[in-house]
């Protein structure tokens, strides 16, 4: 313990050098810009900027790339709140209440709470990384395919409950997402599926195209289908004196931030798209424990604070399996693994002893980076919120242009743009028919991992489905799934019985 603190202090010494501070600042700023631009999420942002770090020493390079990562996560939340366009999947949930807050003229408090929530989570996360990393990493390592599969099933059900619409519709969207995720190479046998003899589909459906299509393009189209006069009237112009959060906002948010940080940190250690699951789990928790659960989805600040803290904490703790085990559990950390290898650092159990400067320097820089983001973003809240002052007649074409350009830059492929437009049209129709796109997107991302876990579990058990129920952790996730599935029905029964009892009482 004492040794960990000493090493962390030396890490702060490394991260606080002038050059490393500069690279951290550059990374955070570049990441925020990348996150704000639709189509350029943390994955593309990190990948694009790896060549920029070639001339730097490994510690400075990784500090800068990590800065891009959490800067992009913050920037993604900004577009979620201001434009209802999630910069990356983890920000999807922020759209639900964040955008509603913006529509009510409360974009500023939502953005500020995002920054404060991220910083709070970062502060708690660093303590978690130093003191809890070894035992928690062990626990995550003990997860086998059945636990992984059950966890993802649980995630889907949580998500389907979160969206607030029809559970059956959400589940159908999740299944469609899984089917789309099955397009391309079979992750186990290497055979091609649903490619229809086209080379474009061999590598599967491009997730970024689906994400921008379903959320960005669909949102633009949903706005454009309003008559011109309404388009003009619906411009949101927040007042500057309303931009900062009130004491009441902070009071309402602090509990959600702390809970979100805890959830995010725990989920971040688990294989899979941790920030995505963490944000949904945090949102669901806030909704469940809230005194006004029905208000969620209408612009509740806890619906922004909790998921944002969870997002940041999950991003931070996702570095534990990457650094300690050498296993990336999410695409951004996979890219960072590549960057580490390029710079001659091999993550794994020996990393702490072989490259203590990189390990502790990067951990300390995350805290510094979060502080920089807080310092940068709070004063710039009015600047970000001012995007809403641009008339929609101008903003919508601009968003469309950035979506088209951003999509092209991911793979330099015009086919990706066509796919994005197709998904945009689908997303627009889904929106009109009250189908939620979030389960589809989540399913698309974790579908291949889910399939691998499912098939590996059955291989291990020689085709026996009991493997999912015999292992305690897997069983716990499945019981939680059943509970989440049963909750709406239970709530309905309790309400019906309560109403019946009240009627009888009234009649008596």
């Amino acid at each position: 313990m004492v040794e960990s603190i000493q090493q962390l202090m030396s890490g702060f010494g490394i991260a606080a050098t002038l050059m490393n501070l500069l690279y951290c600042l550059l990374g955070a700023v570049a990441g925020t810009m990348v996150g704000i631009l639709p189509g350029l999420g943390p994955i593309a942002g990190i990948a694009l900027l790896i060549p920029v770090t070639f001339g730097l020493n490994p510690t400075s390079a990784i500090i800068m790339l990590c800065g891009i990562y959490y800067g992009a996560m913050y920037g993604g939340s900004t577009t979620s709140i201001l434009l209802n366009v999630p910069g990356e999947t983890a920000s999807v949930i922020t759209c639900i209440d964040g955008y509603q807050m913006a529509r009510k003229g409360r974009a500023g408090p939502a953005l500020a709470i995002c920054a404060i929530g991220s910083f709070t989570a970062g502060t708690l996360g660093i303590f978690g990384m130093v003191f809890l990393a070894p035992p928690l990493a062990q626990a995550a390592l003990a997860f086998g395919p059945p636990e992984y599969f059950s966890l993802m099933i649980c995630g889907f059900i949580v998500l389907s409950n979160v969206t607030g619409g029809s559970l059956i519709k959400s589940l159908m969207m999740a299944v469609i997402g899984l089917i789309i995720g099955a397009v391309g190479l079979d992750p186990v046998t290497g055979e091609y599926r649903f490619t229809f003899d086209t080379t474009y589909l061999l590598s599967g459906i491009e997730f970024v195209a689906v994400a921008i299509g379903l959320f960005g393009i669909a949102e633009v189209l949903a706005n454009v289908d309003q008559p011109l006069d309404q388009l003009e009237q619906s411009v949101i112009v927040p007042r500057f004196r309303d931009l900062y959060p009130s004491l009441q906002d902070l009071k309402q948010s602090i509990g959600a931030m702390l809970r979100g940080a805890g959830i995010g940190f725990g989920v971040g250690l688990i294989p899979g798209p941790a920030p995505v699951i963490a944000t949904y789990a945090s949102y669901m928790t806030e909704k469940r424990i809230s005194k006004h659960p029905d208000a969620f989805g209408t612009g509740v600040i806890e619906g922004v604070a909790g998921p944002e803290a969870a997002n940041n904490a999950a991003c931070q703790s996702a570095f534990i399996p990457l650094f300690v085990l050498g296993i990336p559990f999410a695409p951004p950390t996979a890219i960072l693994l590549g960057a580490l290898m390029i710079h001659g650092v091999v993550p794994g159990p020996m990393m702490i002893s072989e490259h203590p400067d990189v390990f502790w320097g990067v951990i300390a820089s995350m805290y510094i980076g979060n502080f920089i983001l807080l310092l940068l973003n709070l004063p710039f809240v009015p600047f970000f919120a001012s995007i809403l002052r641009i008339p929609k007649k101008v903003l919508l074409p601009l968003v469309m242009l950035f979506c088209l350009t951003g999509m092209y830059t991911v793979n330099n492929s015009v086919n990706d743009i066509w796919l994005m437009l197709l998904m945009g049209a689908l997303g627009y129709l889904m929106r009109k028919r009250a189908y939620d796109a979030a389960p589809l997107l989540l399913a698309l991302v974790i579908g291949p991992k889910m399939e691998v876990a499912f098939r590996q579990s059955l291989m291990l058990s020689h085709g026996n489905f009991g493997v999912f129920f015999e292992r305690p952790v897997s069983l716990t996730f499945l019981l939680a799934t059943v509970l989440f599935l049963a909750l709406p029905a239970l709530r309905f029964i309790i309400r019906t019985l309560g109403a019946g009892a009240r009627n009888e009482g009234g009649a008596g």
Partner: protein
Amino acid sequence: MRRDELIEGAVLFLCGGVTVVLSLRMPIGTFRMAGSGLFPLCLGIILMLLALLYLANLLLQRDAKGHPGQTAGPAPRAAGQMLLFFGASALGVLGLNILGYPLTAFLLMLLLLRILGIRRPVLLVALPLLAAAGSYLLFVQFLKIPLPKGLIGL
């Protein structure tokens, strides 16, 4: 019960059915040693079951009047505006490899702004020019990402 909801349910059921049929063309294997078609086959069946459940739910709610979660369709004129906007965007994608990025971005912005009712000539020229130049500088000059140059090499 609404006719369009029934159609939705039927379309989703059909999607599940198509997935099942396509999956059956792939090796299914056994649960112990699953083939590449097993997982999508399971998904297709689950989708069909969920769609059936959705349809059954609709049939049980015959007296229900509409669905609160659904939004009304756009006015015909606004729908036309949306289709024009979408069509112009698709046209822009078509022009990308022919005209190159800067020119396509300029023309696309001009077209989209015009569709949304911007009429002042100054704005119609200045905004697309700024957007095209700004995005070109950001992606090509700052982020070093190559964008299509087109046949005229712009």
